[in-house]
């Protein structure tokens, strides 16, 4: 299944850094997110977009992860050549990630 089925997401920007939250709709899916939505997978998913490091922060109270992606916005929001200079649309791209369902979801 796609990540979109179990999580929602929002992108924020600061300079050349983009952050993407991934929030489980249902707290029971938080372990799946922790296990499968790793920094490495996010970095690989954004090949050609994110040039720097991807760091993941965990927020168990919110059943959420926060990904902070360096060198992700074409040199920075205020100077980027990109149509979506803020990277607002990156969250939707991340929700396209494939997730192996847990035993309850099959």
């Amino acid at each position: 299944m796609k990540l979109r089925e179990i999580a929602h997401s929002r992108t924020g920007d600061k300079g050349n850094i983009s952050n993407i939250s991934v929030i489980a709709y249902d707290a029971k899916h938080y372990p799946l997110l922790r296990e499968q939505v790793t920094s490495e997978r996010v970095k690989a998913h954004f090949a050609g977009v994110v040039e720097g490091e991807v760091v993941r922060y965990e927020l168990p109270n919110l059943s959420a992860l926060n990904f902070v992606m360096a060198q992700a916005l074409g040199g920075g929001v205020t100077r980027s050549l990109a149509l979506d200079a803020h990277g607002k649309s990156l969250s939707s791209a991340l929700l396209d990630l494939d997730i192996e369902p847990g035993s309850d979801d099959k």
Partner: protein
Amino acid sequence: MRTIRIGSGAGYSGDRIEPAVELAEKGDIQYLVFECLGERTVALAQQARMKNPEGGYDPLLEERMRAVLPVCGAKGIKIVTNMGAANPEAAARRTAEIAKSLGLSSLKIAAIVGDDVLDACKDGDLPIMEFDGTIKQLGNRLLSANAYLGAEPMAEALIAGADIVITGRASDPALFLAPMIHAFGWAMDDWNLLGQGTVAGHLLECAGQITGGYFADPGYKDVPDLARLGFPIGEVGEDGSLVITKVKGSGGAVTARTCKEQLLYEVHDPRQYFQPDVVADFSQVTIEEIGPDRVRVSGGRGHQRTDTLKVSVGYVDSYIGEGQISYAGPGALARGRLALEIVRERLKLTGVASSELRFELVGVDSLHGAEVSSHANEPYEVRVRVAGRTENLREAVRIGNEVETLYTNGPAAGGGAWKSARDVVAVASVLLPRELAKPQVRFVGA
């Protein structure tokens, strides 16, 4: 326990006007905050002020003030805003004229000055955080340097009796923290209260982004009546307790989900959200729906503030030239790709000097590049887009020209060509020792 209600009347400079009027009329609020100053806006405003000494403040100041002042004046709702941009004193004078013309000449209006720290930054030749280099190395490309001020001067103005406080560069959450400090007398070293107050400010500062804006995804996250989106109200208690809500009957929705998304918006390490007044810690925050469009947010904490203030440095970065043209129907994708190849070769042949170029098809791969978008199907139409960075305007113009000439020199049936060339004012950051920024409160007519 004492409680205040703070309305968020704008989340960016061009935001909708009437939700703030709705908040003032029906929101039972005591404070109305307008956050209207983007990262680079103050640098552009500085250029405007250089052309006109009475300019350099937010272009929508007059429209917003005329819309809300009658009801705010009648109800005693205090206004806090960063619409002062590069010239808070001129914005305050203009607001006083508007108030007078509306028969509200008794309103006390204060400007906060001192965020302009260009001289201090030059003296210190501070290193730039985003790239190798210092302030001095920007030379005559340097336009402005403005420190993110904290809540203290704004709270001081409110305590001195201001009805309207107009600042320039200040941290966005601090615009909301100032009313809390004014109402409750929070100590400026009560880090946990300031941390929880920062959670409130951070959640409210983007206005509609917590009431269902920037959220809807049909079939997954549906939001009612976005055309009449209500802006948020923060109900804050003396002990920092917080409920996010909105005007009954307005569009949108306040739910645990909208609040979670906004809590993490533009946040890096949730344990360390750096603010001028506090280092806020969002990591223990809990979010709970307690009624329709009522969400309780608890557990924000804080640590001692740092010795530095973040400064936003505006500078002339480069020029960008751009051109676009559309192709449709059978073979649109192939003609679009051919068009891109032609422009790529033309820019080489004619020797256009650029340091960075993008060739893309809008509708196919413009947002996330060829790799991420590789499994997309053939679209009905595509829009060619070429953008390049140059050192001067003349070179930038040549990029758009090479797209436009596709009309008569490129693939069949290209339409709707468009081009632009512009200078790019960008921002970078430096950290300034806190004591070098000296904010002051100035009342109009004082």
